[in-house]
């Protein structure tokens, strides 16, 4: 590398020097140094509360640092608002997209551009977008309404928006959380092209494997400080996890100590419709044995929510059989199923898993208040409730000011601990866990996984619904893949590849030899959904990219 013109000699694209940001009672960022070079994907890793979001806010002009300096291409930068950031060439693709859903892609892009004419705002857009789209291998339908786009497509619109605004440095906040593995690959290709053009990318993620695959440099934040700054080639997942958490973290598969037992849950030809009568599950077959974790994979909205609702009694199936230890329980309500040992870690932990305005102690018995010792006839024995709360807060290390604190004020991880303590603390037969680690930090995720393994080892049947393939591959024995309300395949988690599962998630059964999965092939298969969208998309995506 020529010494004079090498990357070391040029000032970095974006630089933070000793940036400190304090909030009342907490130092969110403590003397943070960060250098993002041109042509580099720089990953920012850290637990919840490590200071990533504050850092991003400062880079995007949402907050001003208390101390330290921001430099771009060696020039000091004073950002007073996102407008300044955009003008300076900093773009942000937030985790929750900032798009007007009812408007078209073109209108959304026009809205983001400063030089949009007042009349016919979208007229001059097509040429510019086409050029960009071609350069980055995007396919974007400018006339499509945002509401009709998949999460992956919306993300591409956000990236386009940033590029149109002239972003030299692009910040991506948890970009793959809503994507299939194939879509994630396409995103990484785009990032690759941005690198080639000399732009810089800041990738915020907690998926270690992904960071290692895409990033050139990795900065790990913990408690607001930079605890590690390494080249991606010089580190590994265990190393990064240790930096993030500050201690050794176990990763990877841990097999059950003994083989699975009898069939606990048997689902046969299950059909479920939504409120409008549209089919959401179409002839699903499923088995979970005692002492086994069965994963359910799929892109959001392919029937996972309906499956967990039916199994836990929140929804009534339109047809089919659900057997629990041989007894037909289809159509039974939440209360009966809970009494049979069906516990549920719901997807929506803040609205469904707990009543946010109630006390921690009350939420710890939310579903168990009809059982001894909490019920005394028609009364609630609050002394037993309080005693139980003290125990659960201690055993699960729930961080709460007291058992009487309002549950809404706890952090996400601690709300989940309340739910786990309640659901897994009693007799369990079938555990239905829906996205149990979504949004949790490494330590809380680890605890959640340990508890699910503990359930498995204790002889419970566990059904784990997740969009995180790593989670499924680590925990599950078998993985059932749902696509449009049907099971497109069942794979052995020990041998399955992410790619194979990704194809099944997109409705492509080629990983199983092209033959339709015998029991899940139903008569109404071809009748539904004429090829109007993603059905044929994934095959093309997988072939081309």
């Amino acid at each position: 590398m020529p010494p004079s013109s090498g990357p070391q000699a040029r000032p970095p694209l974006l630089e933070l020097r000793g940036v400190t940001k304090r909030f009342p009672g907490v130092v969110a960022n403590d003397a943070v140094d960060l250098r993002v070079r041109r042509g580099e994907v720089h990953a920012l890793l850290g637990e919840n509360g490590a200071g990533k979001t504050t850092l991003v806010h400062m880079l995007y002009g949402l907050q001003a640092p208390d101390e330290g300096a921001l430099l771009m291409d060696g020039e000091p930068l004073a950002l007073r608002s996102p407008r300044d950031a955009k003008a300076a060439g900093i773009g942000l693709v937030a985790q929750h997209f900032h798009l007007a859903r009812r408007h078209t892609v073109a209108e959304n892009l026009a809205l983001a551009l400063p030089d949009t004419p007042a009349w016919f705002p979208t007229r001059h857009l097509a040429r510019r977008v086409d050029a960009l789209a071609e350069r980055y291998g995007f396919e974007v339908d400018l006339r499509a309404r945002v509401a009709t786009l998949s999460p992956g497509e919306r993300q591409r619109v956000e990236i386009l928006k940033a590029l149109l605004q002239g972003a030299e440095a692009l910040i991506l906040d948890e970009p793959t959380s809503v994507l299939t593995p194939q879509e994630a690959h396409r995103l990484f290709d785009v990032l690759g092209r941005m690198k080639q053009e000399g732009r810089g990318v800041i990738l915020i993620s907690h998926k270690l494997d992904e960071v290692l695959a895409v990033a050139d440099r990795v900065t790990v934040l913990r408690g607001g400080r930079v605890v590690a700054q390494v080249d991606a080639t010089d580190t590994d997942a265990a190393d990064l996890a240790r930096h993030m958490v500050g201690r050794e973290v176990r990763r990877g598969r841990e097999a059950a100590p003994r083989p699975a037992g009898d069939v606990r849950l048997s689902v046969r030809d299950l059909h479920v419709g939504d409120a409008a009568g549209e089919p959401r599950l179409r002839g699903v077959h499923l088995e979970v044995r005692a002492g086994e974790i069965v994963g359910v994979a799929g892109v959001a909205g392919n029937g996972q929510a309906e499956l967990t609702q039916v199994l836990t009694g929140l929804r009534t199936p339109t047809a089919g059989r659900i057997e629990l230890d041989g007894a037909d329980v289809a159509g039974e309500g939440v209360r009966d199923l809970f009494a049979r040992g069906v516990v549920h870690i719901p997807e929506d932990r803040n609205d469904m898993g707990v009543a946010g305005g109630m006390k921690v102690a009350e939420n710890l018995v939310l579903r168990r208040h009809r059982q001894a010792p909490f019920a005394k006839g028609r009364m609630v024995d609050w002394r037993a409730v309080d005693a139980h709360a003290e125990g659960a807060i201690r055993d699960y290390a729930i961080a709460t000011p007291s058992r009487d604190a309002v549950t809404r004020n706890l952090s996400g991880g601690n709300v989940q601990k309340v739910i786990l303590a309640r659901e897994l603390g009693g007799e369990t037969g079938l555990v239905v866990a829906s996205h149990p680690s979504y949004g949790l930090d490494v330590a809380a995720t680890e605890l959640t996984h340990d508890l699910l393994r503990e359930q498995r080892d204790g002889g419970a049947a566990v059904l784990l619904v997740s969009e995180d393939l790593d989670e499924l591959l680590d925990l599950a024995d078998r993985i059932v893949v749902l696509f449009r309300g049907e099971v497109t395949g069942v794979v052995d988690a020990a041998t399955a590849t992410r790619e194979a599962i990704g194809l099944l998630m997109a409705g492509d059964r080629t990983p199983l030899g092209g033959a339709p999965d015998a029991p899940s092939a139903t008569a109404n298969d071809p009748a539904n959904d004429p090829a109007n969208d993603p059905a044929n998309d994934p095959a093309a995506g997988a072939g081309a990219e």
Partner: protein
Amino acid sequence: MNGLRIERRGAPSAALVWGVSLGAVAVAMLGTGLLFAAFGVAPLEAARVIVERTILDARGASEVVRRAIPLMLAGVGLTLAFRARFWNIGAEGQLLIGAVAAAGVALFVDLPGVLTIPAMFVVGFLAAAAWGLGPALLKVRLGVNEIITTLMLNYVAIYLVRWLVNGPWKGSSLSGFAYSDRFDAAAILPTIGTTRLHWPTLVLAVLAAVAVAWLLARTRFGFEVRMMGESPEAARYAGVDFFRTTLILVLVSAGAAGLAGVGEVAGIHHRLVDPGSLSIGYGYTAIIVALLARRNALAALVTALFLGWVAASGDVMQVALRLPSQITGVVQGLVLLCIIAAEPILEYRLVRAPRRAATPPDAAGPEAT
């Protein structure tokens, strides 16, 4: 630019709740003072007259309490319904139906004397509860908005009473007046001395408040009611039987308003009278009672006394200060307005914004944990 930012706060402390409530009432009183001034009445002088004739005078004080009795019963019932977020606006109609049923017993049912009053309360409770059943069923079965159904049924009740006192139940001895016949002595509640304070109803109101408070705090039913109110999704997940729970709580809520109606006919009027005289909007004022009490049944006893005082003061304003009768309604409206306007103070707080930051609300604050 330095500025202030609005931030969500955690659970407000009891002191803050009391302070804000009292502050809201104080602002409403201040508004009332301005209103007096606009009518050419010196506010402080008006206040002196009102206090003298309502609180410092024994008879005046008894009027405050007797106005508070129906507010207590209806208000306590509403705290229960409002806890589950069943917005019962129909206490007025339920009160009237309770009065009708009690009058029916008093006028047409031959009972041994000692049983008459208890029978009137029981039948009044049941009739009002049945009146609330319709909206409850429509809500849980068909998702019909209870605010509309309960409100509309008020008018049905008002016209039912008007029809009764002008038609079939019109008194034989009182040609020309829209009254029923006077009740027998056995159907008339005792009062304290020469006041109109029908104390058995007051006792009932206190018992009702204690019972509702106990139900909410101690029983599984109450726990489930609170769950429904705090988070319907969590209640569904916890297996709460919405049908049964809603039915029971509406029956109790409407029945309590019915008891208030029984007290008015058996304790004050001694006959079924025109709905406008029977209830001076007690059922609506009870909504303010319940909300000002922050849906706490025991606190509703206190807030009912306060609004009873407002109603009794209205009488004084009319008689002694020559103000129009509608002034009571205006004062009540002011109180309600101030309470609702003060609500955000309990939920949010102002903090100093970070320096030079243009913060959209979703991006504000330190990292979410």
